[in-house]
């Protein structure tokens, strides 16, 4: 077997594709191997039911790094982001809470519930904007190791120190609070209207086994604020054709630079000789040589499945073993014959073009978490609902709709384990809860796809179904992601690298891990 490629990327998730595109762009002969028949990992579009296309897993975009969009000329390859303008939270008293595209309309709406909060929201928004500016440089940086004395680490730390000092005390303190507090406590400092706090805190629990009152959830909140579509922080959008079309655009950019992509090609293991990666062996038995192998899989698969843990230092293996996944999210995709009719806002209004958040109170969310804490799925879960076909009619046959329901909590470690019956019971709980707010929903359902964390793991490979390739918890972020000393995309095996969301800066359709890994690989070879 000879080295037929300069680089093989294992896993065609969007991070793997980004890494491949940057490597190919730098002239490396690159091959992407994806196990599934489609590229994209958790960012895929599939026609689950004839005529109905779903962003099966991830469904909205914001975090995708603008430098990647520019470097890879993604608009030329099909990137097209459509506006997601509003969030409506139906309340238990039949009213609703909304945030609209227009700041004045949002303000007036908030005033209806709490004039004080309407004022606070403006100041809060500005602070979050500053926080997003504060973390932005970190997203574009290979994490320096504070325990290291190497010149590059020291230079990185110095840069970071200067950056934090330049924030000034007010912002630095806010950042510190966000890093340590619970989202509920943090929002308590700002707002009084409970459904507002609940809806905002929901961003702090997504993909995490935490409740809104658990410390650390405020960081996850911030993570969802730092996207910057079109220079505007915190803007979320749909992708034309679903999130799979983002992966497709990245794949097209990679191929335009000469990379090859192969689907239906599961990698069984990475070939290692004398502490060096030499290529991969596929499940089919085929072996392909390469001088660099990059894993886009999560840390568990990267370090304990693709290679033999015996080839790795004990501390690393131990760290990976203790790295927390604990998937807590499920997804229900519905093909609908028509539009849901929400009791709080009857008919087909503009609210159906945005998100509908089932987060009527902090207590509601915390109770949803309580179920999960004790090994059950939430009987009344938090849900983030969108109807992509409203703004992208080609996702469904004319007049029909696709509804994407992101659900929490659905614990990976369910009491008694997930079975087909339990999955459907979970689906029923989701639909029943939804029907409390939109009674006609059940009569509209043409097809229902229910995905538990167990399904997410089985289909995408994401361990324990964690949507971020591992929790966004402070102890596994930045220079600790995935484990101390191995946060710079390297592994102890020469020529074997990691580029998935399990590395800094973490999950979401962001591409930052893939980019930073590729730049690091190219730097090390230069």
């Amino acid at each position, binding site marked *: 077997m000879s080295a037929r490629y300069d680089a093989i990327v294992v896993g065609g998730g969007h991070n793997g594709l980004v890494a491949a595109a940057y490597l190919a762009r730098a002239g490396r002969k690159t091959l992407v191997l994806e196990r599934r028949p489609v590229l994209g990992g958790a960012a895929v579009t599939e026609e689950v039911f004839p005529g109905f296309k779903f962003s099966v897993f991830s469904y909205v975009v914001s975090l995708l790094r603008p430098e990647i969009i520019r470097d890879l000329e993604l608009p030329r390859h099909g990137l097209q982001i459509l506006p997601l303008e509003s969030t409506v939270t139906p309340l238990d008293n039949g009213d609703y809470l909304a945030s609209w595209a227009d700041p004045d309309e949002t303000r007036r709406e908030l005033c209806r519930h709490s004039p004080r909060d309407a004022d606070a929201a403006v100041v809060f928004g500005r602070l979050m904007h500053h926080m997003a500016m504060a973390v932005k440089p970190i997203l574009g940086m290979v994490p320096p190791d504070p325990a290291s004395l190497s010149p590059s680490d020291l230079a990185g730390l110095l840069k970071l120190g200067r950056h934090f000092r330049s924030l000034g005390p007010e912002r630095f303190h806010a950042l510190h609070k966000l890093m340590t507090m619970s989202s509920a406590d943090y929002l308590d400092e700002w707002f009084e209207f409970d459904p507002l706090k609940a809806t905002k805190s929901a961003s702090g629990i997504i993909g995490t086994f935490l409740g809104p009152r658990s410390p650390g959830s405020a960081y996850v909140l911030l993570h969802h604020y730092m996207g910057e579509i*079109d220079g505007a922080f915190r803007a979320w959008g749909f992708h034309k054709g679903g999130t799979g079309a983002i992966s497709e655009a990245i794949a097209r950019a990679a191929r335009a630079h000469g990379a090859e992509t192969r689907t239906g090609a599961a990698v069984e293991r990475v070939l290692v000789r004398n502490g060096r990666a030499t290529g991969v062996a596929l499940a089919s038995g085929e072996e392909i040589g390469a001088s660099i192998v990059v894993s886009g899989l999560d840390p568990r698969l990267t370090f304990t499945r693709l290679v033999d843990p015996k080839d790795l230092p004990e501390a690393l293996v131990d760290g990976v073993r203790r790295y927390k996944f604990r998937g807590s999210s499920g997804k229900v995709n519905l093909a609908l014959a028509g539009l849901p009719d929400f009791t709080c806002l009857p008919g087909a209004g503009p609210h159906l073009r945005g998100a509908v958040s089932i987060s009527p109170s902090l207590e509601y969310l915390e109770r949803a978490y309580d179920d999960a804490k004790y090994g059950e799925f939430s009987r009344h879960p938090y849900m983030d609902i969108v109807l992509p076909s409203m703004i992208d009619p080609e996702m469904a046959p004319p007049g029909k709709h696709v509804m994407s329901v992101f659900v929490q909590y659905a614990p990976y470690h369910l009491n008694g384990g997930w079975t087909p019956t339990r999955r459907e019971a979970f689906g029923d709980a989701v639909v029943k809860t939804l029907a409390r707010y939109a009674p006609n929903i059940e009569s509209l359902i043409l097809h229902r796809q229910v995905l538990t964390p167990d399904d997410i793991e089985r289909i995408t490979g994401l361990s324990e179904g964690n949507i971020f390739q591992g929790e966004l918890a402070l102890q596994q972020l930045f220079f600790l992601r995935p484990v101390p000393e191995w946060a710079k995309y390297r592994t102890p095996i020469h020529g074997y690298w990691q580029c998935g969301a399990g590395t800094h800066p973490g999950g979401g359709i962001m591409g930052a891990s893939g980019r930073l890994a590729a730049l690091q690989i190219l730097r090390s070879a230069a």
Partner: protein
Amino acid sequence: MLKTSPFHPRTAALVRAQTWRRWAGYQMASSYDPLPDREYAAIRSAAALLDVSPLYKYRITGRDAMRLLDRMVTRDMTKLKVGQVYYTPWCDGAGKVIDDGTVSRLGETTYRLTSADSSLRWLHMNAAGMEVAIEDLSERLGALSLQGPLSRAILSRLSAADLSALKYFRLLETTVRDIPVGISRTGYTGDLGYEIWVDASRAVALWDALIDAGTPFGITPAGVWALDIARVEAGLIMMDVDYFSAHHALIEQRKSSPFEINLGWAVAPSKGPFNGRRALAAERARGPRWSFVGLEIEWDSFERLYRAHGLPPQISNVAWRSSVPVYLGGRQVGYATSGCWSPLLKKPLALAHVQAPHFGAGTPLEIEVTVEHHRERAHAVVRKLPFFDPERKKA
């Protein structure tokens, strides 16, 4: 009081933030939502419905109809077939552009001209001694522009005509439900799209039919703000924004030849006598002194200007229309007249007049950007227009 379009009874109810503007003496919507993002998105992703009734429209009939138009415009009207549309500028005797618009050949001796400005006097002046009838249809004819990738699917549901056979810049007469309409495959967005011409008395019925059939396809009423972004991406010029009509310019320097506004392709090199022929032939031989090009503003340098003030780049949801200096090595070599952040291409774009010889594609220039009350310069690169040219436009 400004005039209102025949679709006003429907559009007025939709202008949520009272964002009206003037357009050729009409009161028209800048946008229906307070911000145009969704209306713009519809143009590129589904279908947008735009009221373009303020266009001036003339019917020209008679034995000499073709002769009149051929004498007036720069393209060769002897080549225009029945059922075909030409986009063309027209010039004064010195070869300076007066206006631009479309000429449709509706029948052997029947034509329709659209223009941005009133053209009645100019038509009559050019028709001296000819056997033609010129009819101003401006107020009698309503016009809707249905633009976007799903526009064909919507129209196909409403009309028995075979729209898949209607090629780019062709037109046909048909009915929509029972309303007689003309449909031309034209528009001002650089996308797949159609313009629909209807008698003003049936305008509201046409609007209702389109909304009804279009709703399952995401049809979205859109205003001028959305259109303005699309037309910058498509590199389409606008009279009295990107160039001055020779009839409006107060000084010579304000006038432009077709070659200077990227319409050289529309000047037929060999055709019979027409207004400006000699001047234009001379200019063709000499090469133009100015060109109208796309400028792509480089993000990194743009962002740096803002960063220096601790700000993220400020991006507007609305296109700008003002004169902005363009530099090369500290010397002004041109000026931009329109621009926008392209939500699709994810770049700040501008349309600019640039002096010879600095207008070749790829030329690095600088454009003025006002950041925090300071006049700064960002790097910009000359690009061939259009910035965005999807296959579906002509497919």
